[in-house]
């Protein structure tokens, strides 16, 4: 999505009557697209879902951490379990979350409110927006009537573009988070914890940015 179009759309939506905290998100000022990386606050976020199809999957848990002033700030780390509308289904084997555990989770609407609040005035950072962003859009549409109008930086898309530009993209190139981290010499983390994945994604962004001479928000957006 084009950044000025995003701003236009937010302005347009901001004039309508929308529920809190979505209204604050719409009215918050976004960082300028020319802002340097250090000047922008990112919410590195990862979601675990009941399935791989963003159109039908439900959120099971979410974790995030802020990247600000060019650093991952663990003081801001947050994670919680979400109670989905349906059961846990197949993914229990992947995440180790059973219906019982999930049953103690937050109502999905409250969880979404928290996500919206932390995203207010910030940029969403995910690895593979195709899943997480689509899911968040769907949830926002259902709760607030609109998709989530925030700028998105996708480390997977960034690496995909870089490899393609340098003609390094081969059929067997892996863009999985763990493999990309290996390439950047980042340590291995245990998989399948959304907070750890959020931290891992944030560190990957630092590494990607460090490799470039200078980086603006615009360089990172899709």
């Amino acid at each position, binding site marked *: 999505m084009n950044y000025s179009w995003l701003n236009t759309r937010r302005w347009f939506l901001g004039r309508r009557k929308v529920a809190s905290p979505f209204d604050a998100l719409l009215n918050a000022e976004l960082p300028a697209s020319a802002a340097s990386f250090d000047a922008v606050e990112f919410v590195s976020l990862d979601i675990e879902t009941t399935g791989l199809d963003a159109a039908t999957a439900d959120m099971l848990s979410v*974790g995030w951490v802020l990247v600000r002033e*060019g*650093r*991952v*700030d*663990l*003081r*801001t*780390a*947050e*994670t*919680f379990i979400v109670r989905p509308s349906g059961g846990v289904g197949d993914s229990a084997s992947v995440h180790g979350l059973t219906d019982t555990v999930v049953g103690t989770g937050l109502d999905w609407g409250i969880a979404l409110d928290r996500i919206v609040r932390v995203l207010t005035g910030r940029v969403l950072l995910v690895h593979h927006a195709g899943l997480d962003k689509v899911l968040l859009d769907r949830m926002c549409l259902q709760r607030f009537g609109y998709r989530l109008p925030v700028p998105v930086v996708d480390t997977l898309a960034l690496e995909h573009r870089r490899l393609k530009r340098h003609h390094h993209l081969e059929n067997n190139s892996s863009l999985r988070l763990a493999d990309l981290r290996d390439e*950047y*010499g*980042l*340590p291995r*983390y*245990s998989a399948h*914890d959304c*907070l*750890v994945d959020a*931290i891992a994604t*944030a*560190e990957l962004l*630092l*590494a990607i*940015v*460090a*490799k470039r001479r200078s980086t603006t928000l615009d360089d990172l957006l899709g």
Partner: protein
Amino acid sequence: MKEIPEIAQFLRELPGFDILDDAQIANCAKNIDIAYYRQGDDILTAGSENRCLHIIRSGAVELRDDAGQMMARLAERDCFGFPSLMRQTPARNHSIAMEDTLVYHLDGTAFARARHASVGFDTWFIRALSDRLTMHPPPPTFRGVSGQQVRSLITRPPVSIGMNASIRETAQKMVEERVSAMLISDGTAVAGIITDRDIRERIVATGIDGSHPVTEVMTVSPVTLDGDANAYEAAIVMMQSNIHHLPVTSGGKILGMVSRSDFMRLETEHPLYLVSDIGKQKTAAGVVEVCRRMPALIIGQIEADANGELLGKFITMITDTVTRQLLRIAEAEFGPPPCDYAWVALGSQGRFEQSAKSDQDNALVLSNDAKETDDEYFASIAKVVNDGLDACGYVYCPGDVMASNPKWRRPLRDWKQYFHKWITVPEEKALMHANIFFDLRCIAGSSELVDALKKSVQKDARKNEIFLALMAKNAMTYQPPLGFFRQFVLDKSGEHKNTLDIKMHGIMPIVEIARIRSLAAGELRICTRNRLLAAAKAKEITETDAANLIDALDFIEKLRIEHQSRQLQAGKQPDNHLAPEELSPLVRQNLKSAFSQVRVSQSALLNRFHLA
């Protein structure tokens, strides 16, 4: 804020952090921010302010000193930046990412909280701090060894133990052999090494049982060097690998071990070289120039683990040499003296108890034959010596107790008169002078003059209980603080705000007790420790009291040495002002015990003269 298992687990396995409990780990984990540095990036620059403990999560970092010399190479799980954090000084070294490096920055406040919460954690970092400080390799240190083979540095046959030894047996043998590192041998070759530091970090800190085999905790296949290698190379290897012990081999066979202190013994900057260099100087400016090497030397002595008593003697010995050489230079300029004289050192120099920060107190005792007109000569040489000492760092006495003051440049009979008056008509100023002048020692010239003076003083003082009682009362001016740091007598304003003057409140009270007690015993000894022992022998104080005071003095002086060493390392002027934050809870506890010992002895002194 949620627990982050991945981060907590990493921290839990770090040396030092392994002592913390889960709550303390969690508190650390949530006070971290993560930064990524590209190869070649500066992480901390020397002289910059540092607010966090840097923990290398992945990658490699080099520490370099101001001159660009490599001090240490650090890898994953190593920490840096703690010396500046603990001492609240700017960073001393540059730290540069040698590879792309991920660094966890633990917030300084959280680090301080963990140190406060856990004595073990605190102790670990205090030791690490001293290791980091002693790794400082002064560039000229190794000049003298470059021509030698490393095998020539070996001082004794290798001390080793077999592969099947237990940890406890190994430690016992280390104690017996008085070594700080032990080789583990598989019969012929070096299989591993274990050092004092390993015992601390890998055994005590982790709680491994002493019955386990030493092979479980030793460093397997340690760095070794062939005996034919250049000694300089050995020094480099030790610095690069940041190790203190290096096994030396020949054709796979162990020849022995060299340690950093072996280099210390051989360095060109040995105190004896300094003394002989001072003796070669023909001008005061030359002496001043040679004295510039003093701070490095003092640091070297502290690294060699000199205690307060030795260090005091060492520094005083150099001051004595400087004084004598300046006198020689002055005599060469103004000609031979018109009559006999004695150059007298007073105060801490007199007692052999100077520290890295000492001002000068001195006087001239002239022969009774001295004529009125001779004073011009002695005024001239006194000026040369006083100015020279000041330029060498022994700043002018703030109370003007120096030979350049005509009042303190008198014939013997005047001196006897002075002391007689101080002792028989004691008033406040007289007591102050008495304190300084009782610690007198002849540095140069005719020692008979000083002996004669001492003899008369001793007689006067011993039979004068009133004088001694007033001295005792005066000695209560400075009392060691009893309550803990909240109630510590901290300076309330000025340059040394919120610090404790450890000389005034810790060392001087002991010095004064010792002086009065030895005078009362009719002994005019010089060093504080000797005075206490002599007083105990004369039953003026109990043996226990003397021993306890000496212990307290040792401890307080050690704190002062460490404090001044930190300042010298940071290129600062040493002083006596300790900041409470410099001290770990353990050290504070010990300091408190030392202080209460001094208070007990002060009360006993008051009782002795019925002043309580």
